[in-house]
């Protein structure tokens, strides 16, 4: 038995027929072919599958697609505007805030949610907000530098 889910994905009205057990991550990756968000731990710990639902970061691996009916979803593919990357994406490149890139979509979306909520966060606020995103390449310093740069915080310690 399938249900039709209608939602806005990266600003575009979309719909999909899904089983009740389909996760938001599976729907986004397999039905909408937006593969920026990755499956990592599958238990809401690592942050690789982060997507923004109505502006808030969630673990898409553990959210049911039927549960976001009517919501607005932002994926990393929706960040650039008219072929211009988001400042966070630019900063991640500039500061080399990634190696393998598996966690990058989750980090950038979480940082985006933070900056939308609080445009000038303190370093501690950034650390608290991002504490649940893991980078196994260990690019944390560079990730902090990139986000602080976009937030307009000097990197002097």
């Amino acid at each position, binding site marked *: 038995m399938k249900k039709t889910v209608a939602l806005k994905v990266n600003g575009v009205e979309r719909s999909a027929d899904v089983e009740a057990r389909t996760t938001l991550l599976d729907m986004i990756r397999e039905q909408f072919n937006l593969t920026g968000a990755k499956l990592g731990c599958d238990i809401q710990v690592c942050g690789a599958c*982060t997507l923004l*639902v109505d502006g808030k970061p969630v673990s898409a691996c*553990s*959210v049911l697609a039927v549960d976001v009916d009517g919501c607005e979803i932002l994926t990393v593919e929706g960040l650039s505007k008219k072929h211009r990357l988001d400042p966070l994406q630019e900063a991640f490149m500039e500061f080399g805030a990634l190696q393998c890139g598996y966690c990058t979509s989750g980090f950038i979306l979480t940082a985006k949610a933070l900056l939308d909520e609080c445009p000038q966060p303190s370093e501690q606020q950034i650390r608290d907000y991002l504490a649940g995103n893991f980078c196994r390449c260990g690019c944390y310093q560079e990730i902090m530098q990139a986000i602080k740069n976009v937030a307009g915080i000097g990197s002097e310690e």
Partner: protein
Amino acid sequence: MRNFDYLEPTTVAEACALLKQHAGEAKVFAGGSHLTILMKQGLYEPKSLVNIKKIPELKGIQYDAKEGLTIGALVTHRELETSALVKEKFPVLCEAEREVANIRVRNMGTVGGNLASGEPLTDLSQIFISLDGKAKIIGPDGQRIIPVEELFLDFYTTSLAEDEILTQVEIPPLPARSGIEYIRFSSSSVVDKPSAGVAVCLMLETSSEAVQAARIVLGCVGATPVRARRAEGFITGKKLTLELAKEAGGIASQECSPTSDLRGSEQYKRAIVGTLVKRAAEKAYERARTLPSLGEG
């Protein structure tokens, strides 16, 4: 994950009726942060999920000078963390929420789900119990209000019947000359579940600095949160000193039943409990002495 029917009632009565109709085969679904994991792992295979998120009366946070704080079951961890009302009346809850899991879980997970899951490695239950919180429960035959303490029976087992829904948590106003502190300790990453979490709420006598009533609640160190009643009795009637707080911690550390696991050995957790009780009692005592009118009005 095995497939299931997804039901979306819009009233509590309708939800209870559905739960009764599908008794034994349905689960209440709110934020889903607990359930989806267990379902993916095949530990729960309900035939139906009753999503209660479309029930408006389960939302929202209210405060009334007489009744105290009311937290709807659907209030998310993040809503509790960022609520200006909660910050003013019970800042301890906001402080604790800052450390619950990660931002994604706090955005989805709900207060009601946190309690109803019976998850022992959590924070809110011990704070609610220390504040003498009550749980309001509605079933097909009406409602009942019980102390939060009585919700928890065993690991992942609560006193909620299959057709009942936890609808809200009620916390009475903090009496004058009261203070509370909650401290949790994680042995690995900051976003890990706690090894132990201790809430201490103290009320002082009106005309002296002796403790009139104490509620010391130990979490994550047993199948359910437990009150350290011997430690509570030990400090009641006394002015709290560093030595007494330390001794109370030692007593409390023997009033729980931690298991050795990846978050620490039994002995280690008992030692942590002792230290946390000492620190939380000192802080709660300090607050009770210096903030006599907190929670009034």
